[in-house]
């Protein structure tokens, strides 16, 4: 296997230039797809025969919930890379993605709660899935809080790597435990796990908005990483040139 891309990615300069090319494109393509998906879903897809129009929030809820989980997984991997290969870029990645992930987890909770009120008659139940998203949100807050709390860059980088890695090991355990906990104790009143068999015209817009959100968020994260890289490498010659040429 050819590892050069891996080592290249480790170089802040290479990453910066690569991201300059791609971040903007990702954001715009993502935004476009997201818009298509959401407008299609909200305005044109048929209403659900049980839930009526309230189900349309799914076009926000599900992509956001999926992304919230994916972000943490990515952070956990980056944490491993940071600890084992000491790659400079990995902590930057964690720092940037953590905020995106936290926002997504928060929106997932919020949209779920808003959806829950009309369908279940309550904002919240202690269901396995809901609980694990809540814990996920707290894990994100932990990563963000520790990195804000530590002044020392080297320590802060190690700390977020440790927290991300430990958290990601625990995520499946948490998921498994809450599922097991709630099904043993309280036969779930509301099952989220059984997918409503969805007709194509409901499912396609969902696919669009999910894909769009992923690309959009990737682009945003890359932007954040670029800023962070500039801040950290402010002494390097290439950064000075970069800043000069941007005329800032």
């Amino acid at each position, binding site marked *: 296997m050819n590892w050069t891309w891996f080592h290249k990615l480790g170089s802040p300069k290479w990453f910066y230039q690569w991201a300059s090319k791609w971040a903007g494109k990702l954001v715009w393509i993502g935004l476009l797809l997201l818009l298509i998906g959401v407008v299609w879903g909200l305005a044109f897809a048929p209403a659900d025969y049980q839930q009526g129009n309230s189900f349309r929030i799914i076009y926000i809820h599900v992509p956001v919930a999926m992304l919230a989980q994916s972000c943490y997984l990515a952070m956990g991997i980056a944490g491993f890379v940071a*600890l084992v290969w000491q790659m400079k870029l990995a902590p930057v990645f964690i720092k940037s993605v953590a905020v995106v992930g936290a926002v997504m987890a928060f929106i997932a909770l919020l949209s779920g709660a808003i959806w829950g009120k009309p369908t279940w008659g309550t904002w919240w139940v202690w269901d396995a899935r809901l609980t694990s998203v809540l*814990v996920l949100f*707290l*894990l994100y*807050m*932990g990563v963000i*809080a*520790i990195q804000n*709390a*530590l002044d*020392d860059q*080297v*320590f802060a*980088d*190690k*700390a977020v790597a*440790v*927290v991300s*890695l*430990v*958290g990601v*090991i*625990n995520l499946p*355990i*948490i998921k*498994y*435990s*809450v599922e*097991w*906990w709630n099904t*043993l*104790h309280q036969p779930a009143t509301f099952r989220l796990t059984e997918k409503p068999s969805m007709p194509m015209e409901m499912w396609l817009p969902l696919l669009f908005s999910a894909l769009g959100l992923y690309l959009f968020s990737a682009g945003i994260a890359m932007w954040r990483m670029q800023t962070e890289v500039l801040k950290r490498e402010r002494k390097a010659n290439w950064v000075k040139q970069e800043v000069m040429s941007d005329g800032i």
Partner: protein
Amino acid sequence: MNYTSFFKAEWLSLLRRKQDTLNALLFFVMVITLFPLGVDPSSEFLAPAAGGIIWCATALSVLMAVEGLFKEDFNDGSLEQWLASGLSVSVLVLLKVLAQWLMVMVPLLLALPVLAQMLFLPWSSLLTVMGSLLLGTPALFLIGAIGAALTVSLRRGAVLMLLLILPLYIPVIIFATGAIRAAQLQMSVSGQLAILAAMSIVALALAPVMTAISIKASVN
């Protein structure tokens, strides 16, 4: 410094402040008292909730006990000496946690039968409660050590530490209370207890290494 002298000194320090041990126990007692007072003192309410209350109280006591685990070592320069000693920091962490665990959990387990009575926990489930504590608390201590190391350089890191480690405590608490509930329903508990033991073993393998990394990063 070697491992034996380190463990002896840790143990001695803990003994010197033995009122602290007693206090971890008393904190445990207080949480257990607070709950009936604040919520509902009837046995119909307490008996089924007893296992959960005991575990929540334990988790909070352990948190209190490990919260400042390395703070003093950081302030008085001991962490620098650990690193300079050339010994494995992971092993030192493990020894420190072991000393702390013995000091906190032994009195707590001894007092448990009486306290369980106050929450109307049926005698038949007492053994399961004790087993779950024995198997589960090592994980709590070890995870707590990671949080303590991460927040060691912060002046008031206690709350941040809670935020970091409570999500990791949740699975332990869920399986432990699950075992107790199963015991109260006369169901088999060996499955859950095995999971608890597995968690402690995983924590034993990973947590000291993570803690050592954090400690190393904190010295600068």
